[in-house]
């Protein structure tokens, strides 16, 4: 049963373009996340966000920024994509922190940068 929805499923773009990925959760959770999964399938946290606090992984380049209109939505914008941004971006949510609550993931957005 899907409760974390991501769009688009795939996106192909060229170096230097701006892209934006959407994520919505219908679980009523208060915390949302963006993860990056590289070609070796390693999952790394990029951002976690609830209505009080944005936590940024310090390794994330500044061209990445999360955007939230309410606690059910957390979008991801990349201002000027680079080849190393090619990856699968996974959105997740939890009720409270992910270390003490179950994480629910969306199906992912696969980005290819040409």
């Amino acid at each position: 049963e899907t409760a974390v929805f991501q769009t688009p499923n795939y996106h192909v773009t060229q170096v230097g373009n701006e892209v934006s990925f959407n994520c919505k959760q219908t679980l009523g959770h208060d915390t949302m996340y963006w993860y990056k999964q590289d070609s070796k399938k390693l999952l790394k946290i990029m951002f976690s966000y609830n209505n009080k606090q944005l936590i940024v992984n310090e390794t994330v380049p500044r061209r990445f920024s999360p955007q939230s209109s309410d606690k059910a939505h957390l979008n991801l914008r990349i201002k000027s994509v680079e080849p190393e941004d090619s990856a699968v971006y996974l959105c997740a949510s939890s009720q409270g922190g992910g270390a003490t609550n179950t994480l629910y993931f969306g199906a992912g957005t696969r980005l290819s940068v040409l």
Partner: protein
Amino acid sequence: GDKVKQSPSALSLQEGTNSALRCNFSIAATTVQWFLQNPRGSLMNLFYLVPGTKENGRLKSAFDSKESYSTLHIRDAQLEDSGTYFCAAGSSNTNKVVFGTGTRLQVLP
């Protein structure tokens, strides 16, 4: 180095057989989650554990926080069990979750 290491990295099983996947932590984990990523890319949560064991159908998981490891046992493997299994160690002290390196499982007919 890897703070959460999974073994084996890849595994092939005949349908109907059993197997165990392992996750070793070099961080102080208070919770563990196990996920299955199917070939389409969706990550499905299998278990959320505090120290102890849980069972769900053909799957059983154990988490030993003192010895810093967790296991996932698959009984009577089915074709639909194929995919990549991830464990994720959580620390309630730091509120951080660290994912393991994954085990790619292929169940053969």
